[in-house]
């Protein structure tokens, strides 16, 4: 690939709203219930049934719209989008089309220290479809069953403007958006379970040229990593094709994470005619200014503001503040630990270097389920700061805290991990090490300064890491000078 192309990416993100009931009926939205136990005549689309708008879903939509600086439309309307599929009870989906809930927003991201503003085209509400379960593979299945539990679950679709230029920007945009919806408590942000889904539109055009390139849609990316990898793959694939003078076909492609490539799903030449028209079973939805202001009053501190506050109040780097505020649970965790030990830099390091490595994910649930409470992490940091344990021992203690949920002091006192700083006790160990490694000591005296590290290491080994490094260093220096 010659690198002479401008990349144009737009993202469509579907977020499942954390309402208790479905978009147009009273059924529960709890994930993982036995098939078809959370359905009623309305969400099964049975004859004569009618939809009733879930007010809470609209409220969540307004909340998100405000957080991404969208203009909430006073006049909203639902429409029908038609296509036949067995998991869609009515064979049309109720969604918003010409008059969406909100439009014209933006989201600020930062990639490699450079700030970028990504425009947001629209935010609209719609209902999810059910799920098909094939007996065996799709091709060979003798029968297929439908689970309508998910049918009618409220979704919010956020469509970006084609302002994204790189896969890194796409990743940053998605992480920011996810952080926002999770902060707002309107979506749990879980991509693996499908509560957040992302489709990407991507095209390449000659650098500086005005005509837009041919758009390819990529679907089926169920993690941030997938999105980034899929986009990187597509940018390369399309670039190579253009280099070779080939035409890009407008099509939908699926990301195959096992093969690490996108594969063609269907050609856009046969694009479906959805025959949109205004949903006659629902009157236009009027969102009054008063309602919008009432929702605005409930907005929490958003990630961008919190990030700035973390940098100012806790002297964190932009990078650290960004990571910590990427999840509301993580940021809350950080603040709770800092409140108890007063060491923001240390807390940040422990969270970002140790805790995130252990957690099964960095989402809200993983953080909430973590065995080390913020108070316990603060306790560990206090033990390090006051010299009770060494940093090396602390890592061990941290591991044990993570497995057992015990606090640091309990583990340290039970296992006798307290740092040895007594010059008398350590003096004997140092003497022993010098006697055993007399040649190394002589090397040091002869000017091989690196030998000192080896000697320190031997003392630490002999004390199972409990020796205070400072005391060991000064003892060694003193005894070596006397040799």
């Amino acid at each position, binding site marked *: 690939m010659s690198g002479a192309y401008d990349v144009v990416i737009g993202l469509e993100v579907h977020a499942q709203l954390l309402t208790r009931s479905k978009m147009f009926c009273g059924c529960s939205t709890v994930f993982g219930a036995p098939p078809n136990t959370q359905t009623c*005549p309305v969400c099964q689309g049975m*004859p*004569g049934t009618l939809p009733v708008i879930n007010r809470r879903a609209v409220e969540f939509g307004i909340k998100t719209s405000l957080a991404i600086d969208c203009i909430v439309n006073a006049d909203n309307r639902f429409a*029908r989008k038609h296509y*036949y599929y067995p998991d869609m009870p*009515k064979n*049309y989906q109720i969604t918003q089309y010409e008059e969406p809930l909100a439009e014209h927003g933006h989201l600020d991201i930062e990639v490699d220290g450079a700030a970028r503003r990504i425009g947001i085209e629209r935010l609209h509400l719609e209902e999810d479809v059910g799920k098909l379960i094939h007996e065996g593979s799709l091709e060979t299945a003798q029968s297929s069953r439908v689970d309508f539990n998910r049918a009618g679950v409220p979704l919010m679709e956020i469509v970006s403007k084609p302002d994204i230029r790189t896969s890194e920007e796409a990743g940053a945009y998605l992480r920011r958006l996810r952080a926002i919806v999770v902060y707002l408590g309107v979506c749990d942000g879980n991509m693996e379970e499908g509560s957040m889904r992302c489709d990407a539109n991507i095209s390449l055009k000659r650098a500086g040229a005005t005509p837009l390139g041919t758009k390819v849609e990529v679907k089926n990316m169920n993690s941030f990593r997938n999105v980034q990898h899929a986009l990187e793959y597509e940018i390369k694939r399309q670039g190579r094709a253009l280099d070779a003078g080939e035409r890009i076909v407008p099509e939908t492609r699926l990301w195959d994470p096992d093969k690490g490539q996108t594969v063609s799903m269907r050609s856009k030449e046969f694009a479906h005619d959805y*025959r949109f028209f205004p949903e006659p*079973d629902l*009157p236009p939805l009027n969102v009054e200014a008063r309602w919008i202001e009432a929702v605005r009053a409930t907005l929490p501190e958003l990630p961008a503001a919190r990030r700035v506050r973390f940098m100012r109040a806790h002297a964190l780097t932009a990078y650290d503040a960004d990571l910590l505020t990427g999840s509301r649970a993580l940021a809350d965790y950080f603040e709770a630990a800092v409140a108890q030990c007063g060491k923001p830099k240390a807390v940040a390091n422990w969270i970002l270097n140790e805790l995130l490595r252990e957690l099964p994910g960095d989402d809200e649930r993983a953080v909430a389920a973590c065995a080390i409470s913020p108070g316990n992490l603060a306790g560990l940091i206090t033990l390090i700061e006051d010299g009770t344990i060494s940093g090396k021992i602390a890592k061990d203690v941290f591991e044990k805290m993570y497995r057992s949920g015990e606090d640091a002091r309990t583990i340290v006192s039970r296992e006798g991990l307290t740092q040895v700083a007594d010059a008398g006790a350590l003096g004997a160990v140092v003497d022993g090490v010098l006697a055993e490694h007399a040649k190394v000591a002589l090397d040091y005296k002869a000017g091989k300064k690196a030998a000192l590290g080896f000697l320190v290491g031997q003392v630490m080994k002999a004390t199972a890491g409990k020796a205070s490094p400072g005391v060991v260093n000064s003892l060694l220096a003193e005894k070596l000078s006397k040799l």
Partner: protein
Amino acid sequence: MLTDLTIHELGARFRRGDATPTQAAREYLARIAALDPTVKAYLTVTGDAALARAAEADARFKSGAPLGPLDGVPLGVKDVFCTRGVRTTCGSKILEGFVPPYDATVVARLLGAGAVILGKLNMDEFAMGSSTENSAYFTTRNPWDLSRVPGGSSGGSAAAVAADLAAATLGTDTGGSIRQPAAFCGNVGLKPTYGRVSRFGLVAFASSLDQVGPFAKDVLDAALMLQAIAGHDPLDSTSAAIPVPDYAAELGLGVQGLKVGIPAEYFIEGLDAEVEAAVRAAIETLKGLGAKTESISLPHTEYGLAAYYLIAPAECSSNLARYDGVKYGLRVPGARDLIDMYSRTRGVGFGAEVKRRVMLGTYALSAGYYDAYYGKAQKVRTLVQRDFQKAFERVDVIVAPTTPSVAFKIGEKEDPLSMYLNDVFTIPVNLAGLPGLSVPAGFTKAGLPIGLQVIGKAFDEAMLLRTARAYEAATTWRERKPELAA
């Protein structure tokens, strides 16, 4: 015979203890058994359930605590309404075997008022038609002349009332499906304002036009039926949260001083001479009762039919998409794949008229044609609405013929377009969402009923009922009954 009586007459007997709901139910069931093989109004008769409910009503009357005017009264409902535990076909093969686990709101309200439901009435498939010849099961006969249609699509509901096979019935009116069969069968049919009555549980044809209403033996009965079913329903967001007046209380106010509009566009070429004469005579009667008449113009009437035949099919193509063989009703076996299953099931399950409208609607909504057809039709709809708004600035109520002609022969109208013309006077009222009523206004020399249509302002059903009642009281048309022999 109890089956001769109106709801209010029957209720009076129950209260006096001269008759019991069980006696009434038994008489109606016996009459259905004797006459319905001839009339063919019922698709399903629920005799056991009716007798059980009648027995409950007996107990209420015995204890002196009846629920209201409908308590113990035997009624029928069009098979377009979902009835819990009772098969609901909508006159279509595609819903064969469908037994809803829920009641339509209007059915629940009738049952809540103590009514005894005798069964489900025949109709044109998915309420598409003007003759009940489009039922997938059989054609209902007009009790006044068995070789003629009862009108449609609520033909079963109209014929049942005319033949005394129910004290009153419920139908639906999307483009005239209550008023036209009421005119053909010689009873009172009322289409309320769009939003006045809940559509929940009514199998949808065209959502923005469908409305539920009663067929009754007289105007007071129509008022009692409307009273029972009207009012906001949280399950239907398009149902209006507007208070429901006491219709019966306002019935006797008369027409003295009322301004009655006569639309020039409803007295056109093609209007049957006998119908025109009867309607003009009815207008004279109203004048005689003290009403003032005024000529008005509804200039967009001629475009109403065309707009309707784009909007209604568009909505029907969408509403009927759910009948695909996947979840309930008919599934034709032997399909090669999913699309084949859809095609076979819908191919066999839907009749010609439904297919015609689904195709038309699909076309009207398709990407390149939306603006030219559906969009344009919506604009026309607005113009029709404005016509009525302007007229109602000057008049209290509008009267006109309900239909251009009287009941035609079964099989007579083979051309769908000539069939569509039947609804030319009723359709504009649906497009505007207004209430309309048909009241008997005479008979042709051949003895076929003629209907007078009364059109009112939105949510002013009381005015229609009052006008129709004044006219009814001044005439004797309702005393005539069709002669039927088992």
